[in-house]
């Protein structure tokens, strides 16, 4: 099933990417190539090949519940464009509810 420009526009919206109609139209066939390549790999995988989400067959990598030092508030905020009262300051959020 070919990816349409509308699909790309929808995905762009979800990912907060501002794409023009022309860009969506251009990207659709490009993304389609990537998807069909993935499909080819999927077609090879049969029931006897277990699903894999990691390169390493590891499970249960866990740490003990031990507190380690955090950043200082100054360090934490050092990369922020705007701060106030030791907090990150962000623009007003429209159309959403807390």
């Amino acid at each position: 099933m070919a990816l349409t420009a509308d699909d790309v526009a929808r995905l762009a919206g979800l990912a907060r990417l501002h794409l023009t109609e022309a860009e969506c139209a251009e990207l659709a066939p490009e993304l389609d190539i990537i998807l069909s390549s993935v499909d080819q790999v999927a077609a090879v995988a049969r029931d006897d090949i277990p699903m894999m989400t990691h390169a390493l067959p590891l499970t249960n990598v866990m740490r003990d519940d031990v507190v380690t030092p955090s950043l200082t508030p100054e360090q934490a905020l050092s990369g922020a464009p705007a701060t106030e009262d030791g907090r990150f300051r962000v623009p007003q959020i429209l159309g959403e509810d807390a």
Partner: protein
Amino acid sequence: MTEILDYDDVLESFDPAIGLEVHVELSTASKMFCGCSTTFGAEPNSQTCPVCLGLPGSLPVVNAKAVESAIRIGLALNCQIAPWGRFARKNYFYPDMTKNFQTSQYDEPIAHDGWVDLEVEGEMFRIEVERAHMEEDAGKLTHVGTSGRIHGAEYSLLDYNRAGTPLIEIVTRPILGTGAKAPQVAKAYVSHLRDLMRALKVSDVRMEHGSLRCDANISLAHKGAQELGIRTETKNVNSLRSVERAITFEMRRQGALLLDGGRVKQETRHFDEATGTTRSGRSKEEAQDYRYFAEPDLVPIAPSAEWIEELRATLPEQPVARRKRLATEWDADELAMRDIVAVGAMDMIEETVAAGAPPQAARKWWVGELARRANEGGVELEELPITPRDVAEVCALVVSGELNDKLARQVFEGVLAGEGSAREVVDARGLAIVSDDGALKEAVDKAIAANPDVAARIRDGKHQAIGALIGQVMKAMRGQADAGRVRELVLEELG
């Protein structure tokens, strides 16, 4: 003004279906995926690191204690524990998470298909638990502007101390067939979860701190209809009473809409504690699309059967069974048990009784005097600087006749003030009852001499007047007398 229907009229035409999503904040020392502390109320952004700030290149590692708690919660809810499961990214754009996704679980929750049996006003209900999964909490937003609310806010401030705190989300299947009791069943369920989390010691479940939060899905179906109605999801239902009120209100609001030929809009609503009403929240037309996918930075969790059985062996007695057992042991009726649960005194009373106190006395002190003092101090009962052993010691002194209730109260005051053990307070403050009859007789004689009219009435057989004299004597003895003995002495003189 929202139209609402009388509750009875709602039930005449509709059957309610409810669904509850409860978030429990785990009381681990560190966060879900990093070693930052989870302590409540710390300086803003003092408990963050590259992982929970979502800085590039940082990698999460799962907190074993959180997984252990999740499994124990699952088992206590009679769930199956998944032998293998992954974390997933729930993608959304909102500044409460810097990563633009929340690490959660999607189609492979750690626990699924459980149940909880509840008794509500003598009727049994089985609540089916669809799933319990692990995820992380978000940061705390403060909206700055004239209204203090998001609408009209000029900007928002963010504290990420809470971001990454381990959460367990427990989701029920639609709860049907509760009829008029729907709000009470929901409340009983949340209350049960709270007791259960306490018994498991996995969360401090302080609803006022947000460590247990509830979202309630409510829909109405016309009586006899096969399909469920359109539901709303009410958020911000953060006390047991609110659970009941929010559901009642939504049933009445939806009932009025439907009877009027209208349609319920599928939406998120917010509960307003002050008015007991719900209001429309997010008004997005399209459903949320979180584009879940397996978290590539974390490996799957595959608890072994041995580990699960090991954890099963650590489960406490189920709250309902325990409550029943204690009610019998303490000879307490349902109302008394409710009071005990309401002040959170169950554990303390049990330990006090185990330390040798009569159940009646242990109940009286914890639910009365001590709960009152905790309340005045704005702390939980177990935070009072007094142990069940101390209370048992006071009870023993009352039983032996060394203290009466009034003196016992003073002993509690002393223990709470850090003056030492019950015995030490009694000795230091000189609180023991005067059992020396000579001193008592002297006080009785004085009281009689000072109140000749009262004495005359008692001589005439009007024994109800005796209280006034006993009061005088007790006052003279600074409360340190056995009122029963005083009564005997007065009657010896005047009877």
